[in-house]
């Protein structure tokens, strides 16, 4: 991210007058800054993405500290498994906003056997986030390696790798995910995440390949080769940083899709299974209780939507930050004022 890449006008880009003046303003603003700084600055200015980043951070902190992670204890009084006497009738949530915020004993309510929904949802959020992050990291890595090799070496290797990608793409993700989940089912979320990473790297591989095909024709690659750099050094030290924008944006999209995939599989019963908890598994477990205890259904869904929405918004902000062509144009009213 801190690679100092000067912004040179791309050959073949044609700017009209308006764009030129806008670019002049933009260039003046970012004069003398590294690419990382420029991207950070643009990202911070993207209001939706910043709000999303803060909310997501809040969810992560809440989920990890409240019930603790692994051996580390959390500050919340209940664990996902323990059963306590039902506080409200039918275990309704004690969270209320009438007369100030009242958290109470079971803010998200309880299920029919007295388990605390807040603790369970937090546990589910942990698991779903864990799966999301592992898939994001692993699938991105596989995709980058595949795409970089195919795009850089071209020829037969490219053919073989891309046919392999085509094969995996031909298999619908939910289908192969369900089969893999059925196979490793009941195993830890880490195993599930690794299995799912093996089928979700394809779009990243295609994207990176395309980037590398165009990057390898650029002068700096020739310069590096003349200077005696090895192929791997050129690929990962010189070319990869130049493709980092698309990669990061695609990673966020991949992660948003990953959390939806994991929750969907867990809902179908092929992902994380009882007695382990995930957000999708909670919805599956409680879907019949909707009419009598709707809170059991609301909260896990709300957390899935919030996480996916935040990740999507962050991706949108990153795209705007990395790709100045899609920059936000001030509204007519603002133009008139300025």
């Amino acid at each position, binding site marked *: 991210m801190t690679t100092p890449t000067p912004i040179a006008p791309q050959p073949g880009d044609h700017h009209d007058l308006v764009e030129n003046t806008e670019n002049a303003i933009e260039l003046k603003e970012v004069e003398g800054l590294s690419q990382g700084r420029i991207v950070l600055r643009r990202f911070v200015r993207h209001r939706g993405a910043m709000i999303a980043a803060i909310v997501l951070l809040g969810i992560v902190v809440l989920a990890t500290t409240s019930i603790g992670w692994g051996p580390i204890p959390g500050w919340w009084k209940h664990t996902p498994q323990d059963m306590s006497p039902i506080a409200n009738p039918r275990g309704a949530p004690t969270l209320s906003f009438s007369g100030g915020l009242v958290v109470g004993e079971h803010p998200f309510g309880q299920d029919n056997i007295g388990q605390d929904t807040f603790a369970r949802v937090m546990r589910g959020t942990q698991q779903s986030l864990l799966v999301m992050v592992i898939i994001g990291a692993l699938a991105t890595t596989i995709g980058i390696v595949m795409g970089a090799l195919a795009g850089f070496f071209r020829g037969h290797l490219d053919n073989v790798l891309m*046919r*392999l990608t*085509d*094969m*995996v*793409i*031909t*298999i*619908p993700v*939910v*289908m*192969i995910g*369900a*089969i*893999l989940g*059925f*196979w490793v089912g009941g195993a830890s979320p880490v195993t599930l995440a690794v299995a799912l990473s093996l089928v979700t790297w394809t779009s990243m591989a295609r994207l990176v390949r395309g980037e590398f095909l165009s990057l390898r024709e650029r002068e700096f690659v020739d310069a590096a080769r003349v200077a005696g750099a090895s192929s791997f050094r050129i690929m990962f030290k010189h070319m990869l940083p130049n493709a980092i924008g698309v990669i990061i944006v695609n990673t966020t999209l991949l992660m*948003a899709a990953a959390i*939806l995939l994991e*929750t*969907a599989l867990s*809902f*179908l019963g*092929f992902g994380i299974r009882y007695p382990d908890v995930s957000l*999708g598994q909670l*919805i*599956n477990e409680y*879907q019949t209780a*909707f*009419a009598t205890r709707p809170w059991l*259904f609301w909260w896990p*869904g709300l957390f*899935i*939507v919030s996480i*996916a*929405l935040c990740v*999507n*918004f962050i991706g*949108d902000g990153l795209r705007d930050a990395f790709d100045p062509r899609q920059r*936000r*144009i001030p*509204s*007519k009213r603002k133009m008139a004022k300025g």
Partner: protein
Amino acid sequence: MLTFIGRRVLSSVIVLLGATFIVYMLLSVALDPLEDLYASSAPNKEQLIESRIRALNLDTPAPIRYLLWLQGAGGCLIGQCDLGSSWVTGQPVINLLSSAIPSTLQLITMSTFLAIGLGITVGIASALRQYTGFDYGVTFMSFVLYSLPSFWVAVLLKLWGAIGFNDFLADPTFSTPAIIGLSVVGGLIWQAVVGGAVRRRAITFAIAAAATAAALAFISISGWLLDPSLGPVTIGLIGVAVAFGVTALTAGLRNRKALYSALTVVALGLALYYPLQFAFQYATFWLIFGMGLACVLSGLIVGFLFGGPDRAQSMRGAAITAVVVGVFIFIDRLMGVWYAYSNSGRISGRPIATIGSQTPGFGGNDFWVLTLDTFTHLLLPTIALILISFASYTRYSRASLLEVMNQDYIRTARAKGLPERVVTVRHAFRNALIPLATIVPLDIAALFGGAIITERIFAWSGMGSLFLHSLEARDANPVMGYFIVVGTMLVLANIIVDFVYAALDPRIRVNA
């Protein structure tokens, strides 16, 4: 060109073979058909295991079993399909597929068309109103829809869409605050869509809010929802509005011949309203289908007869209007059986169904009642599917129209004095659809796999259910059958996309 096709098909076949091999091997590892026997306490356990191993040919290594399976599947090319049979039920996979595919098609057809139509419309409107409140609203909505888990939406729809609405039907009246609230929301949406200066927005808001309020009050007071109907007068009004709208979009209101031909079609439809009611008594699917074709034809003929320098425009506008009027007459007739349907014994006032594709044991063979029954069952899954795919079409069409609108030739078109309508509809819109034409075939092919989750929640016995049931029963052959259909569709769609792209965009050359 021929070489290109040949190479493309060959590489697709290789990809498909590889993919089926991967899936077959995965299934052979993941599914153990002996699992239930290992756990059983039958006295002749060993014997049972032995016989099942022999029946399923489990002694043979999986790659060789794959070749045997492939041999049967390869027979499909010469008309002798043998995809094996399910060992649980003993049914041939071909039979399972041939009952699942029509069911899935029934489920996805309408939702696909509606999602594409709605998504493109909203995306275009949002692009034309870039950086307005409406655009931001649509963008935000599409992000939310992207992030919604489909299973969550589907269960919510069941609760609100079906149970809530059915409860509401017991006493279908809106309270005054509800009417006011909905009218304000309606007015706000319309003024955002229409846009313009403050004065124009205010007028739009007032008209839209008043119209919404009037419609809701009418529905509430007359109990319209219990026994809905449109009648010739409403159809006529809608028809005239559609005629003006379609003409404004396709030909411009200045083109009087186009406008008159569209209006003539509306008049024709109204004149045929009562005769059609008589013909509807003998309705079958094919009769309705023929009538739809007749609508298109009559529109074309009317447009042709009006003539003028630009016949094609009149013909197109009139044909679209004719189809819309025809659809409304159809809906009107369908509404006619609503009261009888929702009060019949099986339904008893709760018409919106939550599971299955038809009411079990629902007697009668009246075409209209059965169609309505199908519609009430399709309603919720269709909404669920639209909500899922609508967002991506909106995003794609918005992005591609924005890109096209910034091209030089659009500026040229404006500079030579073409009206904005012609620039948008003729020059920009068509080219903006090219990227979409490459996504739609892939989406349709993917949908052949059935909406696995939607089918599960709404208990629809299509391809998705076939897959899930077979997987849960550790039954590999139906899963392979499922995959060969979906995979073939995807591979075909990919080839089609290549050609569509080359056909639509002359800059792309197909080189051998």
